């Protein structure tokens, strides 16, 4: 154990954040302002997600941290170590074994359960920000449910590109009321936003928390004649042969040869452990 309070934040701060979380759960998709604290990592490195996780963790929890689906990037590793040190909680890379999962820009492929909490790191919480820079106006639009402008953005996309061009951070309507930015997850992940787990969203620099309770209606915005499509590349994973997971494209050499692998590393590993093999893969047991 360390000299830090459990999970770094003092108890009063955690209470304040929990109040914000409860408010967010009570009004799904509504951005709750909170007094974001100074954290030992800079803005833009997940301070919002870390504060939400810190307020949510109990000593019995098992924590998983992923960044773009991977457990082993710098970001994921350092946040996981941060909580190991300040909270002493068990950590894991296996999605099915975690009770709290903090994520940057992806939803795990494995279906989450009612016993799990997913914490998202959010850069810009306001979905209307790029159309309407004034905070006073966007607050009014949310409170009056005036979302015409959101559809104007989609209209402009179609008129300029022939289709809705947004490929990540695709705006959604939560419980038929609030329009929400689901954080920069690929639009492929949007259908998963209707899930059994609790979803919490933290933006540290912008000082907002929002939430989606289990089994909440989350609909991606679209037009009747241009319906939302959760597209993905039409390749299977080259390692585990999965056809339904979101893939990263990896350039292998200077000649430009490439491979497509699951962005969710744990999912890929689990499939290979079950014996699935892709074009370039070996089963888990054979990897060095």
């Amino acid at each position: 154990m360390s000299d830090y309070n459990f999970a770094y934040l003092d108890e009063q701060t955690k209470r304040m954040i929990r109040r914000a979380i409860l408010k967010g759960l009570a009004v799904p998709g509504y951005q709750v302002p909170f007094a974001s604290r100074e954290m030992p990592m800079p803005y833009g490195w997940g301070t919002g997600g870390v504060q939400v996780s810190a307020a949510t963790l109990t000593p019995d929890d098992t924590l998983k941290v992923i960044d773009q689906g991977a457990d082993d990037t710098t970001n994921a590793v350092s946040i996981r170590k941060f909580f190991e040190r300040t909270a002493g909680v068990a950590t894991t890379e296996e999605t099915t074994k975690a009770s709290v999962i903090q994520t940057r820009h992806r939803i795990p492929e494995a279906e989450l359960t009612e016993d799990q909490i997913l914490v998202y790191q959010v850069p810009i919480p306001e979905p209307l920000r790029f159309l309407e820079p004034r905070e006073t106006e966007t607050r009014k639009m949310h409170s009056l449910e005036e979302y015409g402008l959101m559809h104007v953005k989609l209209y402009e996309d179609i008129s300029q590109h022939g289709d809705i061009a947004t490929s990540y951070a695709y705006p959604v309507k939560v419980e038929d009321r609030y329009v929400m930015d689901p954080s920069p997850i690929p639009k492929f992940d949007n259908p998963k936003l209707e899930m059994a787990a609790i979803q919490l969203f933290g933006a540290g620099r912008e000082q907002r928390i929002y939430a989606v309770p289990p089994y909440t209606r989350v609909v991606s915005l679209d037009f009747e004649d241009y319906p939302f499509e959760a597209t993905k590349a039409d390749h299977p994973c080259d390692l585990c042969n999965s056809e339904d997971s979101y893939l990263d494209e990896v350039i292998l050499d200077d000649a430009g040869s490439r491979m497509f692998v699951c962005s969710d590393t744990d999912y890929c590993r689990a499939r290979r452990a079950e014996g699935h093999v892709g074009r370039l893969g070996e089963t888990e047991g054979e990897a060095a």
Partner: protein
Amino acid sequence: MSSQTGDQEMTPLLQVNALTKMYGPRIGCKDVSFDLYPGEVMGIVGESGSGKSTLLNAMAGHHPPDRGEVVFDTRADGPVDTLKMSEPERRMLGRTDWAFVHQHARDGLRMSVSAGGNIGERLMAVGGRHYGEIRTQAADWLGRVEISDSRIDDRPSAFSGGMQQRLQIARNLVTGPRLVFMDEPTGGLDVSVQARLLDLLRSLVREMGLSAIIVTHDLAVVRLLADRLMVMKDGHVVESGLTDQVLDDPQHAYTQLLVSSVLQV
């Protein structure tokens, strides 16, 4: 008075009662009252400082007045004092039954959104969710305001002043409002452009059976567009009545001065 032609059954579309807006000790507009019936076009004329823009903005709900009522005959609930409406209700009114044409098109348009998007916004704001239909309606309205529909994807920043103003009108009228407020709609436009715009407004008002309240300092505009006229000076209405009667047989000293000051070409 109204018993003569037996139309006391017709409810006024808008009833303004004792509308007053002060700026500290200065009078913006004082005790303005009138009834506007469906299909009527009312002109409000006056020189700078007369209070006409203050009055228009107070009626349209942009600046809350100090006293008075602005009762609008809503479709759902009959006559309602719009000043007492909740903000969501008033903003909804502003997107459906009411329209406001600003003097500067830039104040009434989104300059970074395409012409089609500008016109379609009101449709989307009241629930339009079919891209093809929205686009068709936008193209139709561009035609009605004499803008080539090949410009549907162009931004208003690429349009001339007259085109921007016509786009603003299309954007406002696409949801078929019943009452249109206009603030110097031809202000700042070249004379030939003005003529075209006025003619367009005239035919749209008639085709759509619109009621309108038009603020202007230009008597030629009211002669052409308005059925009735209110003349304002220093925040008060000094004369009102039938447009051609007020212009041809002015009773009040100020009106006489105003009318006689207009240069004939």
